[in-house]
């Protein structure tokens, strides 16, 4: 008998089309199953239904049989006997899943008391033991910490501890690593594997990232619009996907590894943008007396040729967004200069001359947030024309041309942003940025919020726009796979400093900085045959507030020597790349 068996599950909200349509699958004891699909395909709805968390206004029919007993439609009291003791869930965002007012240890204790798992006087020990088990560094101290005092990765470890504290037979992990950096993601996935081996827990891993499934799951379920389109062993799906949608997903995942690169060639010898010695700092709130400054970017110099794409990558807190915002003027710069075709860029955007402003445009991460919800699409796209060329009469034609170029249906022009999908909204944002024919486009995580196939389309659009108009791009991303597809050169940042600047291909084939190597290794590979790359004990990034002395990366670096502790390396040129590492020449990474 299966541990969990979902039979003919249907979930719908009032009169809308069903979000889950006759879904059938089973999970055996100790088995790891991946549930993949794009956003809106019903992955999370399935997880919530299994845990009995379906909202009250949903109508669910069918059967969810756990260990021989149908749970669907049963009251809370019945579910509570199963939750924690027999099945648990880990959500995507640990910050919103933890109670911000209660210390971490106390939260675990409450679970133990609520479910009467151990005697009252043993709860402290058991909770602490669990925190140690999930590899929380300095667990005794963190036991008394509040959630906001922990980093994202540590919070997710606490969530896993909370989920596994009752030794459940089934763990549901709903996008457990999506909100985390790649290096941390690799560690969390590693932890899940270890714990599963130890407790023989079955796992339902929900994700949109095939790379995450490839190394972690025995079997895969592919959802599409609430229907199960394919269910097979992971290996089979990767080698011979049957359903067209699965084929497209697998192809997209593979493409991001070895891709045909069809980039426009950079042209011209005069740099489009020259950044010299850029330093961006923030006043630290609450520490005004000591005048402490947080240096988000320190002494960064780089040039971008016309028609070139420079990718800026790094973990969160590496300062990549600060660079972008400093260039466009949304962040005041402390030191350094920026030249746009020889013209100095200074001050906030309001004080820059119109001629400069129109050359430099930006596309933001959150497509919905960067469009004014009160304006119609046509007004949003043509607003730059109203500002810069109010007298010209060709507004309508240019709008039509722009809509066509970014692949939007003209009928959408009269809609409002909330009526658009994420991909459509990002196309609108791109159209708005390109209508003035800028020379430089800055994309700040512009595709991070989008699903796989939509992401490919937007990247394709950006590539063709570059060919079409020869614009330069600064492409900020934490996702190396995306970067490989779009950029000519890559700048790797760590705690506000440059680690390495290299052409894209040589960076991926032969990284020269240990941090670049660590980032590359952490990317999950969408191929079950490659197996799992076991990571060295990388740990998490230190706070930007207190950068370590010497080489900022040395506390996490496997190759560090004594010199790295106090001597900060300068950028040196090596085989056409620039690397900031003392040992770059001798290491073979």
């Amino acid at each position, binding site marked *: 008998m299966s541990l969990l068996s979902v039979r003919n599950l249907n979930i719908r909200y009032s009169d809308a089309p069903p979000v889950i349509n006759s879904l059938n699958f089973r999970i055996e004891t100790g088995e790891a199953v991946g549930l993949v699909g794009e956003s809106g395909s019903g992955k999370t709805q399935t997880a919530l239904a299994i845990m009995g968390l379906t909202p009250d206004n949903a109508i669910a029919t069918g059967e969810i049989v756990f260990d021989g007993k149908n749970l669907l439609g049963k009251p809370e009291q019945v579910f509570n006997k199963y939750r924690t003791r027999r099945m648990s869930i880990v959500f995507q965002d640990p910050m919103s899943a933890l109670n911000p007012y209660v210390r971490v240890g106390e939260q675990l204790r409450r679970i133990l008391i609520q479910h009467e798992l151990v005697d009252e006087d043993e709860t402290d020990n058991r909770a602490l033991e669990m925190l140690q088990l999930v590899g929380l560094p300095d667990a005794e101290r963190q036991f008394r910490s509040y959630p906001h005092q922990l980093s994202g990765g540590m919070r997710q470890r606490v969530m896993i501890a909370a989920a596994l504290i009752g030794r459940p037979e089934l763990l549901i992990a709903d996008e457990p690593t999506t909100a985390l950096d790649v290096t941390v993601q690799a560690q969390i996935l590693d932890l899940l594997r270890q714990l599963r081996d130890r407790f023989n827990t079955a796992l339902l891993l929900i994700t949109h990232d095939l790379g995450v499934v490839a190394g972690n799951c025995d079997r895969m379920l592919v959802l599409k619009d609430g229907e199960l389109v394919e269910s097979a062993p992971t290996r089979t799906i990767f080698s011979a996907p049957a359903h067209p949608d699965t084929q497209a997903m697998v192809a997209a995942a593979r493409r991001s590894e070895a891709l045909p690169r069809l980039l426009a060639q950079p042209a011209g010898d005069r740099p489009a943008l020259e950044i010299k010695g850029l330093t961006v700092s923030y006043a630290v709130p609450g520490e005004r007396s000591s005048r402490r400054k947080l240096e988000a970017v320190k002494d960064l110099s780089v040039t971008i040729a016309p028609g070139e794409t420079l990718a800026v990558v790094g973990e969160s807190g590496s300062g990549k967004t600060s660079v972008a915002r400093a260039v466009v003027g949304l962040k005041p710069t402390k030191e350094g200069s920026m030249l746009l075709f020889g013209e100095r860029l200074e001050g906030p955007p309001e004080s820059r001359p119109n001629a400069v402003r129109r050359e430099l445009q930006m596309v933001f991460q959150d497509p919905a*947030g960067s469009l004014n919800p*009160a*304006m*119609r699409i046509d007004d949003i796209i043509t607003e*730059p024309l109203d500002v810069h060329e109010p007298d010209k009469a060709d507004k309508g034609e240019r709008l039509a041309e722009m809509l066509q170029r970014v692949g939007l249906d003209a009928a959408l022009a009269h809609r409002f942003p909330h009526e658009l999908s994420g991909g459509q909204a990002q196309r609108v944002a791109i159209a708005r940025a390109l209508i003035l024919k800028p020379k430089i486009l800055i994309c700040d995580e512009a595709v991070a919020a989008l699903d796989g196939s939509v992401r490919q389309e937007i990247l394709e659009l950006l590539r063709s726009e570059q060919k079409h108009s020869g614009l330069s791009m600064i492409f900020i991303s934490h996702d190396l796979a995306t970067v490989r597809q779009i950029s000519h050169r890559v700048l790797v940042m760590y705690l506000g400093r440059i680690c390495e600047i290299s052409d894209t291909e040589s960076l991926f084939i032969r990284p020269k900085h240990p941090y670049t190597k660590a980032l590359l290794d952490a990317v999950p590979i969408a191929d079950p045959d490659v197996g799992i790359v076991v990571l060295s004990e990388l740990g998490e990034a230190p706070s930007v507030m207190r950068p370590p002395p010497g080489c900022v990366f040395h506390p996490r670096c496997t190759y560090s020597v004594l010199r790295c502790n106090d001597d900060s390396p300068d950028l040196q040129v090596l085989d056409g790349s620039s690397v900031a590492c003392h040992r770059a020449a001798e290491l073979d990474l």
Partner: protein
Amino acid sequence: MNAGVLASRFTAELRRSRSIRICGGTLIAIAVVSLIGPWISPHSYLTTDFDGRFIKPTVEAFHLFGTDDLGRDLFVRTLMGVQVTLLVAVVASIVSLVIGVAYGAVAGYVGGRVDAVMMRIVDALYALPFIFLVILLMVVFKRNFLLIFVAIGAINWLDMARIVRGQTISLKQREFVDAAKLIGVSTWRIIFRHITPNLLGVVVVYVTLTIPQAILVESFLSFLGLGVQEPQTSLGALVNGGVGQMEQASWMLLIPAVLLAVILFCFNFLGDGLRDVFDPRRESR
């Protein structure tokens, strides 16, 4: 939120929300009757009739709400009072809306020192006992009708300014404002074209909640005899008159008091219903 979105959402909500339908309908009905009623009735609001004092509500001679201690027809006077009360409330709310939104949006968007000074002024005004001030003004200016609007509006805009400022601060951190800056949109255009339309929801909800507040202040002033002057009247003044006669003519108190309560009730529930319409979280549904 834009007029188009609002209109479509509003009609959708109207279909769903009973509180908007019932309360909005009642308010509209009261307003219409108060406008038409005096035309239909044969009586005038200021004719006294000393032979017909304290007539109980009756259909006879069309004294639907009875007559008062001076023999004036209470039906016409009550409708008159409703007109004045609603007028005062709406005008006062518009005054508070215009001042409050402009003040709050500028303070919130410009920020920094300008914001600090502007909001300290608001804090200082808060510290003044406004009712007391209004009473003084009434005494000095001989209960000018217009002054009541201004006085009530002047009390309410402070709250509005604070709410709008808070909303503006959270809006200006949104990426669409950054995007507008990069395009080169001027600060004024950002405030009026990008920020203000997005404030509409909060503001409309808040206005429906300030109207009852204004009604209460007006009634309170009139009850103290400082509001509308005889022979003009308002619901507050009628209640005041009724209190004096409540033992022999209870209808003089009950009818305006119940009407006042119904109007306040309806505005408050309408505000609740509208808050649902304007809640941005409902967009996703």
